[in-house]
Each structure stands twice: as structure tokens, then as C-alpha cells.
């Protein structure tokens, strides 16, 4: 058995290597022990004046380290829709920015294979004074596309944004005249039409009215079917459940759970419920303690009153 197992290990390492290589090429995103810290200085607005004054007074800037992402590792194969959930400030958006290469990791390593397109905020690179049509070109160029490529897609983008049904000829008016929903439609249309291999989306689906949201969801599903990889950060748990086939849950910069979306979301909801209950219980306990104190005070007052009555009565 022992000799067998030895040969087995040799064989299995060789196999593992083969599989590793195969998997490597199928991996879209590989995150290894990612840490990302923000160093916030006490000064919100760094100025030369403040720096000189500090120098004269020989002070040092107080630095506070905020650990936005704290030791997260995971892998995403091509064709996965990864949902990222967690409370506000859990580090979801920071994680996404690290994946897109905007924020450099403090520690660890991120490897991304493929052309990345980001939808972290809507209308990046847009100029409010220009028309919707001109902004499509501008937004596309900002995403790193050539004018020819944009010209090819322009029709599809305009059709998708579908502004004409809202207001005739809106595409040729400056974007500062748009409502926020119309603005979001154009921005979203530009973002998803750039057919990236990897799309990183941050809460962008919440833009627009119900009809547009449906359309956006459809488009995202279509992208997923074309073996695109999508990382979706959202508070809309139902959106994540509906769209993703893998899910990670982050809490205070840590990865709590990764796996099937249903399980992860249920666990997250359960945790949230427990948290809320715990908070409620705490609140109730605090209230009870307060009530008790109030009662004790009232009793004390009553006693004093009685004592006074007694004294006055005796006096009288």
C-alpha cells in the first residue's frame, strides 16, 4: 500500500501540474492573500502651508490605517458570475478597485486574465456639456477603445439606452439636460457594450426605472452566457441570487464565506437577522435597565415624599 501511495503521489503531483496549467488558463481572476489598507492622514486637505507649519513645529502627521481588505484569497474561472455581498464598508468596492488595478495592493497579489471593463461609477469620462451621442464616443475612448470600434457599436448603444421613448431627440441634447435616470441609461449602455472578457460592476444595476432594470438584467445574463466573467457587487441580494453562480460574502475586510449563492446569501441574511436581534436584545436590555433605574428613582422620590409628609404632618 505504501509503495502504491508513493507512486500515487508522484502521479498525482504530475496530474496536478497538468490540471493546474489547464486551470490556470481558465482562471480569469486569481487573488492571493490580498491586503489593502488606506492610510488616512489627520489632514483632509494636504497643503504646502500645513506641511511647512508642521516642519516648523516638528510635528508628525497622525496616520490611521484602515484595513479595507484584509487577507482575501479566491479564484474566479472564466464564465463565472461572481456576486460579492456584505455590509456597507465591508471592502467590496475596494476589492473591485484592486481587481481592476486602480488601487495597488498593500500586500498580496492579484492576477487578471483578459480585457477588463469596469462599471464602478456611471458616466466616467463624460462631459456634461456635450450631447449623449458625443459622450458615447468619449466614454468608449475612456474605456480604452478606438473610434472605429465605437462607431461600430454606437447604434447598438443608442438602441439599448432607448432615450427616444422618453424624450424625442434627447441623444443630441447636452447631457446636463438629462434626468439622472436618462444619464444612467446612457452610461450603463456604454459600459456593457464594450464586450470585455471581464466586467466589474458596482451597484450599477440599481440605475434607471423598472423597465430599464429588467433590460439591464437581461443584458447581463446575455453577457454571462457568452462566457464572460462578471464580478458583481450589490446590496440587491435578489439580484445576486438571480444572476450569479458563485458568491462571496465579505465582512470588515475578511472573506467570511464563499460558495453557492443561495447558501451564502442565506447565511448572510441569517447573520444579519442575528445581528439585528442581538442589537435589538441589547437595545431591549438597555431599555430595561433604564426602566429599572427610572422605577428606582420614582420609588426613592415616593419614599422621600412620604418621609416629608410624615415630618410635616408631625410638625403640624
Amino acid at each position: 500500500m505504501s509503495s502504491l501511495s508513493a507512486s500515487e503521489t508522484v502521479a498525482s503531483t504530475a496530474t496536478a501540474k497538468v490540471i493546474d496549467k489547464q486551470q490556470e488558463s481558465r482562471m480569469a481572476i486569481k487573488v492571493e492573500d490580498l491586503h489593502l489598507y488606506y492610510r488616512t492622514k489627520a489632514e483632509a486637505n494636504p497643503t504646502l502651508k500645513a506641511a511647512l507649519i508642521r516642519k516648523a513645529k516638528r510635528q508628525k502627521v497622525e496616520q490611521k490605517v484602515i484595513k479595507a481588505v484584509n487577507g482575501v484569497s479566491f479564484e474566479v474561472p472564466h464564465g463565472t458570475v461572481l456576486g460579492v455581498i456584505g455590509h456597507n464598508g465591508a471592502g467590496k468596492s475596494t476589492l473591485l478597485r484592486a481587481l481592476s488595478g486602480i488601487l495597488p495592493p498593500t500586500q498580496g497579489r492579484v492576477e487578471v486574465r483578459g480585457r477588463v471593463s469596469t462599471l464602478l461609477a456611471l458616466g466616467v469620462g463624460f462631459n456634461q456639456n456635450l450631447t449623449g451621442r458625443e459622450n458615447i464616443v468619449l466614454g468608449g475612448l475612456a474605456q480604452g477603445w478606438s473610434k472605429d470600434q465605437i462607431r461600430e457599436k454606437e447604434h447598438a448603444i443608442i438602441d439599448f439606452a432607448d432615450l427616444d421613448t422618453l424624450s424625442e431627440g434627447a441623444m443630441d441634447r447636452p447631457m446636463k439636460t438629462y434626468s439622472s435616470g436618462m444619464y444612467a441609461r446612457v452610461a450603463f449602455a456604454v459600459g456593457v457594450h464594450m464586450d470585455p472578457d471581464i466586467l466589474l460592476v458596482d451597484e450599477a444595476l440599481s440605475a434607471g426605472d423598472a423597465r430599464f432594470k429588467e433590460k439591464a438584467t437581461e443584458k447581463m445574463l446575455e453577457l454571462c452566457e457568452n462566457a464572460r466573467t462578471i464580478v458583481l457587487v450589490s446590496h440587491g441580494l435578489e439580484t445576486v441570487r438571480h444572476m450569479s453562480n458563485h458568491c462571496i460574502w465579505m465582512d470588515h475586510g475578511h472573506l467570511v464565506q464563499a460558495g453557492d449563492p443561495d447558501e451564502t446569501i442565506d447565511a448572510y441574511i441569517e447573520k444579519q437577522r442575528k445581528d439585528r436581534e442581538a442589537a435589538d436584545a441589547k437595545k431591549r436590555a438597555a431599555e430595561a435597565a433604564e426602566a429599572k433605574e427610572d422605577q428606582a428613582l420614582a420609588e426613592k422620590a415616593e419614599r422621600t415624599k412620604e418621609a416629608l409628609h410624615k415630618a410635616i404632618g408631625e410638625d403640624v
Partner: protein
Amino acid sequence: MATATSETGSEQEARTRTPEPPRPAAEQVHVFEPYRYALPKLGPYFRDVWSRRQFATHMASSTLKGQHFDSFFGQFWLVLNPMLLALVYFLLTSVLAGQGGGMKHFVGLLTGLFAFFYTRNIIQFASQSITGGGKMIINMSFPKMLLPLSTTFTAMLMYFPTLLVYGVFYLTVHRTFTWNILWVIPIFLIQTVFSYGLGLLFAAVTLYFRDMSTLLPYVLRIWMYISPVLFSLSYVKGKVDANLLPHWILYFYQWDPFSPIINSWNTVLVGDGSKPFSSGASYAPQMVEILAGAGCAVVALLIGAWYFMSREREFAVRL
């Protein structure tokens, strides 16, 4: 044993499985690791800059379009604004400082002023490009050098119409030109590179010291007075010889890195430095000055680009 079989199974599976359909873009592998204050890999960086060049030029023209500078009155204002400023400086230099020469003096002033405004615009726009491009920087990954590059194109687009107007003035006053005027092209390029280098430097510095944007206009204005823009070198030399100005002022004129560039520019357009603003002088720039200007431009670009690029990965955190 069971695991062994399953593994061989998966091995066979892995071997027999047809490889993924080729996806050309999948060759793009980005690795992000902790940053140091070091230059990024220059090859991929400049390839990325090159592939996004249309973005820089288009954003520049869009910025101007957004400010209605593509309309007639917009263009008109682009020209009128420096003309009015030139008029102010003309009054200042001819009435207050007593530098004579009438219309020729005015054209000479325009030459220097328009050129200086171009450099000033490049530096000032660039210094605001990073702090002003916050939304783009924290939401997108791209070579940040494109933002000052784009504002440089903006400054260039604002400069060209003033040159046309200047050409008209020049021809009405001088009524002639020599082939030496073609020197304006290399001098223009040298000046652009020089200004862009400084622009990169100030773009990054402004991020660390935000009050730089208030300080910079004053620095630039003082710089204008101590480079041969308003007062030619010979004029200042004359004043120093007559003991009207302290001697040390000459050092500024001599060691100002912008001096060779603006001097060559003036020489090509209005004649020899020793006989400023008068026709009949030589219009050929001095080779020494051209080379010194080119040297300054390269040094400015290298310093600016090094400072900017070695820090640009930090920009998103600093904003």
C-alpha cells in the same frame, strides 16, 4: 484508491478535453502587486498610452467644445483674451518702462506673450488635471499620463488660433518673411516638450500639496517677468549697464531654462537678439540656444515623467 482513480479520470478528462476556444484578449494578463516608488514597466505603459492616444486628443477637443470654443465667438474670445493682455503689457512696457518701438514693439511683445501663454496654459491645466480628474482615476485603470497629455492638447488647440492672428499682425508690420521662419516648428516642439515635462511635475506635486494650484499662477507670472518675454535680454543688459537695474538680474535671464527657447522664438520671428524687434537683423536662431533649449526640454521631461510615473499608482489612494 478511489481518489486515485478519480484523479486519473480527471487527468484523462483534462487531457482529452478540447482546449478552450482561442480568445485573443485572454493573452492580456495583468498582475497587480504592492507598489513601490518605482517606474512601472515602460514598454507596456507606453503601449497603453499609445493605444489610448485618441482618448487624450478627443478629450482635449471635447473639453473645448464643452466650453463652446468651437463656435465663432468662442474662437474669437480665445484670440481676444491674449490680445487684451498683450495690450496691457504693451502699455506697461512702453508707457511705464519706456521701451519704445511702436507697432513693431507691440508685435514683438505678442510674439513672446503668445508663446509664454502657451507654456503657462500647459503647466496650469496639467497641474489641475489629476486633482480634477478624480472620478476617472478612482474608477478606471489607465496610464495617468494621459490626463496631463490631454490638457496639453487643449492648450495647443487654444494656441493655434492665436498664432493665425499673430501671423496677420506679423505680415502687416514686417511685410516679409524668410525661410528661417520654418524654425518655429522645431522650437514649438521643444517648447511643448519642455512645458509638458513641467506640467507632469506640477500635476503630481499639486496632489500632495493642494495649495500649489493657488501658488502656481503667481510663480508663473513672476517667471514671465524674469524671462525674455516682456523685456528682451539686450534691453535688460542696457539697463544693468546704466546701473538702473541690479546686476544679479542678468543671472535669471541667463540661467532661466525657458530663456533659450523664448529667445530663439523671438529671434526667428522678430529678428536678432542684439537688435531686438527691428527688421534687417538676422532671423536665424543661434544653434547654441536651440541645443540648450532642447537639452532643457529633455531634462524637464525626464524629471517630470519620472516623478509623475513613479507615483501615479498612488494617485487613486491620495485623491
